[in-house]
């Protein structure tokens, strides 16, 4: 097993190097440079050249790439032009915020989605099934940013139940309640689409299982219906639900970008959008490399976990 993990980790190195080359090239090749973005109206060729020199952007591209890569290997991701602080500090702080948001949304969509799917399946073609199917299709069809704005309008502006935006209150304690208060709307808005997808797939997985013999046996021997559904059937259906959850985790993480914009959540998605618009090269590069590295490691972890759970998967 240790050998397998090591092999997977080593195979990640070329992937990560490839990512550094691609993101570096993209930032170098798109039109517009940080000096122009900083100087705005005052970007005369002369001023742009001087500022690029001050920022160390006048060196040949290849040299810039290796300086950046070398610094990064020693843990120095450089300093953001637009925010004037170390890239790594900013990325870690922002990634943390995104994890809180996406993590909560993931928990919500897993629990609600599976529950809705199970209830639907248990009541196939019944009133509950139809109602849930209707709501779920509605949820899948509404763009999350639009839903977010509507939620702000209803729950924050009209009802004033929750704050409009941000992650922490401007005043008062920064405790778990303050965080939850700010988290409810964005996490729900982010969870809606994934909840719908999970509910649909959980429903079909459950229907599949409910047709099998062992369920009939369980019912025949008098197991209460609630235990048949939530115990026997769901456990069996989880085998095909879990991979769906894994895929949805990725969607939730990437969908967080829109929600972070609407709710001004200080996450890594909003950070990257702002950084790209400001041509904040080092922040974009550092942010993308960091997020990519996390994805790669997450994938390795999932593969390893799967091979531990299911011995049929060769290591």
């Amino acid at each position, binding site marked *: 097993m240790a050998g397998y993990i090591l092999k997977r980790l080593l195979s990640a190195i070329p992937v990560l190097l490839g990512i550094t080359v691609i993101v570096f090239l993209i930032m170098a090749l798109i039109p*517009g440079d940080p000096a122009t973005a900083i100087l705005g109206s005052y970007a005369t060729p002369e001023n742009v050249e001087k500022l690029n020199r001050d920022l160390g952007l006048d060196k040949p591209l290849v040299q810039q790439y290796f300086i950046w890569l070398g610094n990064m290997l020693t843990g120095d991701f450089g300093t953001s032009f637009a925010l004037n602080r170390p890239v790594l500090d900013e990325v870690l702080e922002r990634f943390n915020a995104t994890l809180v948001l996406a993590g909560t949304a993931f928990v919500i969509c897993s629990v609600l989605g599976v529950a809705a799917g199970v209830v639907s399946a248990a009541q196939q073609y019944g009133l509950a099934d139809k109602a849930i199917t209707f709501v779920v299709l509605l949820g899948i069809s509404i763009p999350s940013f639009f839903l977010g704005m509507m939620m702000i309008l209803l729950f924050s502006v009209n009802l004033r139940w929750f704050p409009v935006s941000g992650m922490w209150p401007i*005043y008062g304690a920064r405790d778990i309640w*303050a965080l939850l208060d700010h988290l409810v709307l964005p996490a729900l808005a982010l969870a809606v689409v994934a909840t719908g997808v999970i509910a649909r797939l959980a429903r079909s997985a459950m229907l599949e299982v409910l047709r099998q013999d062992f369920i009939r046996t369980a019912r025949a021997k008098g197991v209460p219906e609630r235990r048949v559904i939530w115990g026997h059937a769901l456990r069996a259906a989880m085998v095909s639900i879990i991979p769906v959850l894994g895929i949805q985790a990725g969607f939730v993480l990437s969908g967080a970008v829109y929600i972070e914009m*609407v709710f001004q959540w200080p996450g890594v998605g909003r950070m990257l959008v702002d950084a790209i618009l400001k041509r904040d090269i080092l922040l974009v590069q550092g942010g993308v490399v960091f997020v990519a590295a996390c994805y790669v490691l997450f994938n390795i972890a999932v593969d390893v976990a799967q091979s531990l759970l299911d011995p049929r998967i060769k290591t």
Partner: protein
Amino acid sequence: MTVFGFTRRALLAAGTAAALSLSATSAIAQSPPGVLIVGQIAEPKALDPAAVTAVNDFRILMNVYDGLVRYKDGTLETEPALATDWTISDDGTVYTFTLRDGVTFHDGSAFDAEAVKFNFDRMLDEAHPYHDTGPFPLAFFFSAVESVEVVDPLTVSFTLNAPYAPFLSNLAYPTGLIVSPAAVMQHGAEFGRNPSGTGAFKFAEWRSNEAVVVEANPDYWDGAPQLQAVVFRPITDANTRTAEMLAGGIDLMVEVPPVALGQFQADPYTVHEQAGPHVWFLILNAKEGPFADVRVRQAANYAINKEAIVNDVLEGTAEVAAGPTPPAFAWAYNPDLEPYPYDPEKARALIAEAGADGAELTFYVTEGGSGMLDPVAMGTAMQADLEAVGFDVSIETYEWNTFLGNVNPGLEGKADMAQMAWMTNDPDTLPFLALRTEAWPDKGGFNSGYYSNPKVDELLEAARVATDQSERARLYQEMQTIVQEDAPWVFVANWKQNAVTSDRVEGFTLQPSFFLLLEDVVKN
């Protein structure tokens, strides 16, 4: 049935409990009186006035620092601030300032002539030990400064390499704000996050991506401010900023999107508007193609319905521009100028006369950028107006940085017209950088349409070295008349900056400088 019943009850109970407990906490989070919460458009870059370029950052800085001079309330004319008095040598090259006595920086160090010299040397002298706390992108505002001399602790003199009339006005600009040398020495490159000035508010806290907090400076030389503190919150999304204002999360909102203004027209909100030194125009390529003919350039000015653009597209958040100088520069503005009227008949006649019927025009439009208002919608309206008088206009749209990268090097061989907008602090800046022959792109200027008129060059050079304001005013006014006639641009709009305050805020006014001054604001 049991399955469904169980789930529904559980969900309802959990949901209700969560909603109740959470809404209880948010009700407590009402902002206290005396603390003004400002909705800003972005996270600031730094609180070092020499290192930043964005209006967004200036809004904070103007409350934390003072310059040697400042703009008089409601005008763009300078008055004493940290300097109480000054004299200008007869040849206009030596400015000697008497400094205000007894002023200290927020960190306790004294404000004196040495501090002033430190500030300008740091920005301008590459050998200065703290020059590496930059870069200082707008240092060229003071490129005329040859040396700064300490005459005595309360007297400092600036020697310029040539007479430069906008110097005083530049000192009132945020780049001229005075920082504490002691704080720069202590924090080095981190000064931008540990600022110290002499202003009405002192820096308290910066929580990244959440808020910058400043507190009242009780010892302020111009009288302690009324507010206890100001919180600047970065809220980049305009819709979210509007929602925060409606929900009471902020007390003061800047840059209200035109479509949202209607929300705030009634109580408990007050909408503030103030025309500023902003001009929105189309650069016309006077070097080649149809716009090389002055008649066709004038025709474009007649053809575009500017009233409709400011009223319908911009919802009244701008006024029609008459010439290259915005009326906010009251002393330098030529009040006799009338905007080109909307007259498609006249435009058609001029086009026919010039033989430019059916000319194909390439029109550069940006998706959005500093001071550009609503460029895509404005561009589309202009395209329709120009096609109505017989042009064949094709629009090319670019993201802002790409757009600048295309427009600033000049339109030759690429386009016939391009959108542009400027906000400046002196009537010299824009025409000097964008209308002179010596400002063609290959000479390092912004005259991307290659306009050239020796008379205009002469007037602008003379106005720059004249030290008498009424003489400068006369020169600028004559320049405006000629430029309007020559029509190197389509003069479109002067933006009115807007802000909304809640009924808890009193004493707030916007300044024509577009700075946000909060010294006299009260919050109940």
